[in-house]
């Protein structure tokens, strides 16, 4: 052991360096709350600002690594530099404010949630990745042991952390049945394994790419061995939590500097504002320090026996789940509170206080509530979900039919019309101090019927006479032809 003193009680800030990096994905919305492929427009505007010298590059470059597009044209990502706790907050506030201001110029809104309650089906999905690097100030980066311990300690608390941060219950206009739909559907969040340090030959490195096992060859001395931190046998980096850097078996990181060694947590749903984000970062820092403390005390971090099951339960029920610990069931809230108490000891040493409802174990989704869906006609929505989107409706009052030329014709009460039903959405949302849409509060749904002659708005008391799917309609048509022939 190269540092013999126990961390607890010592001057932590002097001995240990803590760096945090954040990747925060955002959506672009129009002023009606719909996802629009406008990340290119925002990025173009930023380029224009840089060319016109309207942005303080010197300030930004110290805080932000980049603002970049994601594969989906409605996604943007802020990536910060590795910074300390105070600066990371500054970086996030400045960058979010800047992006919101730039978007505002083009009448575009920025949305900070994980999923869009209507248009994510289940994609596009956003996430927040937090990278933690904790190392002795004497060294340049994290050692293998630090990586292993911090990874394993965060990993064993994944169920509690998911219970505390899950906030994406609604996708495709319907409660998904999970508190974190993002974690259910995301393809890049496979569970990691217990990290160990393995000695292996350097020559042949197994790696997985696009679900195929492949090998990378490094032409070194055939007798050369190296010690690698392994959380996934085939060096996959798309895990819920994963050690990163040159000391790991991740091939992409093989030639990186030890300075970038870190543990990356990817299982966190997007917090709606910077305060919640900072609290999550603080909890992760606390868990990392607990791991370091255990390392110095020479305590082993045990592999929890029901981690996978508890993780599943946390994704499903969030803070209201029951976890299995030591063969007995325990409310998730109790486990979360216990974790927070332990973490608080370390945060007190750093002078960090949790500032949101997370401090008393109340997740954001419980504090603000899930979006409320108000449908003008439950029967129509039910039929649409079943694929029966072609409907014959009897109007319960006179109504206008709007033709495709925009002319209005009056339809009498009890008129029967047939057509394709489609929903119209009206969103209510909350914005944070940067004018970023932080959460959807209410989703009102009304319905239109596209008929052969034009559009008719449907009302709650209209009667659905027939509802059928496109195939059902074809069956009716061919049956009609059969009858007319005879």
């Amino acid at each position: 052991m190269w540092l013999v003193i126990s961390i607890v009680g010592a001057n932590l800030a002097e001995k240990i360096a803590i760096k945090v990096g954040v990747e925060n994905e955002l959506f672009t919305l129009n002023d009606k709350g719909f996802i629009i492929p406008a990340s290119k427009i925002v990025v173009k505007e930023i380029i224009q600002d840089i060319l016109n010298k309207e942005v303080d590059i010197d300030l930004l470059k110290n805080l932000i690594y980049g603002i970049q597009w994601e594969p989906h044209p409605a996604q943007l990502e802020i990536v910060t530099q590795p910074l300390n706790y105070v600066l990371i907050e500054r970086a996030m506030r400045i960058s979010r404010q800047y992006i919101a201001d730039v978007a505002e110029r083009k009448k575009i809104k920025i949305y900070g949630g994980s999923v869009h309650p209507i248009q994510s089906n289940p994609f596009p999905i956003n996430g927040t990745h937090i990278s933690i690097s904790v190392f002795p100030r004497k060294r340049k980066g994290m050692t293998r042991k630090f990586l292993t311990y911090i990874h394993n300690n965060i990993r064993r608390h994944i169920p509690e952390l998911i219970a505390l941060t899950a906030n994406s219950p609604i996708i495709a206009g319907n409660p998904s049945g999970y508190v974190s739909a993002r974690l259910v559907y995301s393809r890049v969040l496979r569970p990691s394994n217990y990290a160990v340090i393995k000695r292996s030959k350097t020559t042949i490195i197994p790696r997985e790419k696009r679900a195929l096992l492949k090998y990378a060859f490094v032409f070194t001395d055939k007798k050369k061995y190296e010690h690698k931190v392994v959380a996934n046998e085939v060096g996959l980096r798309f895990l819920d939590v994963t050690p990163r850097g040159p000391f790991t078996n991740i091939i992409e990181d093989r030639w990186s500097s030890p300075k970038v060694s870190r543990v990356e947590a990817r299982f966190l749903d997007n917090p709606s504002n910077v305060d919640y984000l900072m609290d999550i970062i603080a909890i992760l820092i606390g868990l990392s320090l607990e791991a370091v403390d255990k390392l110095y005390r020479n305590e082993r971090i045990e592999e929890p026996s029901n981690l996978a099951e508890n993780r599943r339960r946390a994704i499903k029920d969030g803070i209201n789940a029951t976890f299995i610990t030591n063969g007995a069931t325990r409310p998730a809230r109790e486990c979360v509170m216990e974790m927070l108490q332990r973490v608080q000891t370390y945060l007190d040493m750093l002078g960090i206080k949790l500032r949101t409802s997370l401090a008393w174990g109340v997740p954001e989704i419980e504090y603000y509530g899930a979006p409320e869906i108000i449908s003008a006609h439950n029967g129509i929505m039910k039929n649409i979900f079943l694929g029966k989107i072609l409907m014959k409706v009897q109007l319960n009052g006179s109504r206008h039919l709007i033709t495709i030329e925009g002319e209005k014709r009056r339809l009498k009460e009890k008129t029967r019309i047939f057509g394709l039903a489609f929903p119209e959405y009206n969103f209510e949302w909350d914005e944070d101090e940067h004018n970023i849409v932080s959460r959807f509060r209410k989703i009102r749904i009304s319905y239109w019927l596209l008929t052969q002659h034009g559009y008719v708005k449907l009302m709650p008391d209209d009667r659905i006479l027939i509802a059928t799917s496109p195939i059902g309609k074809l069956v009716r048509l061919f049956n009609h032809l059969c009858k007319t022939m005879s």
Partner: protein
Amino acid sequence: MRKKIVPSNWMLMIHILRLYKDVNQLIQLMGHDGKDGEVRAILKKIIGRLKVLNILGSNIPWYFLTFLPLDLLISSNDRFDKPRVLKRALLSLRNSLEKMIVGRISYKFLRRKEAYMNFRNPVSSLCVPSSFDEFIPGYVYIPGRKPVLLTASHAAPPASDINTELLSRRVAMRSGAHALISRIPRLYIDPNRLVGRVLPFRRKLDELINTRKIRLIIDLHSMEKRNSNMVEIGIWFGLSTTSSYVEKLIEFFERNNISYEISYRYLGGDIIFYHANKPRINAIQLEISNDIKGRSLRLLSRTLISYVNVVGDINRRGKSC
């Protein structure tokens, strides 16, 4: 949430192939007198096949919605009592099935594009923002006399396609083609996507195809300059048009020294994909480089005018191009 049952690719394929075969047979038998018995037998077979498809998976109705023309779905059954209307509907059904089959078995690019086109669920993919009635009609129509229709679906700012409105107006005025220009900003509802099918712009397009005997749709867009090409041509891997229309267009481009490419990047959007399902309709998407202006733009519009004149006249005389 309702669990989706997704049938395997081959199972769906077999049923669609059989359906395609039967619809094809029905089209061939129609118009032949004294074959009512055979027609009735095929109709019953088709109904049986459709019923099997309906129980094959919960996502099948949405899959069909992606491909089938809305006209066929929202019209009353009585409308198809006229043999001409029925034949037209059956032909477009056959074309849609053809596209399903080709899309499933063809190139990986096509499959990827098809996956992008597919409805996942109308709740999220066929939805409109509040105050939908404010978007009606949301287009400008310039009537013409030739069976060619120019569309500028992204003409409304912000994020509009540069020059497309100007070009479509200019070409329509001077060549006698019809033009349809969208007035809805793509940032609200994109007329060239799936959701756009319910917009008056797209319904008008369908109406023009049915009533004005349109044979060729030229959908105008603009792209960022990425190479020396002035124009990129999107034809959905050749599924949206017959080769003669493209060959003629290329001939005009070459004659006027307009650099072009058959694009694998801009295959065509939903307008090209969907409206070309109608019988005898050809659709071509033109992506025009953002940086062309002045003389080059005038050259391009002159080329398009002469192309429309030639293609339109051939079609008016009742011959195919």
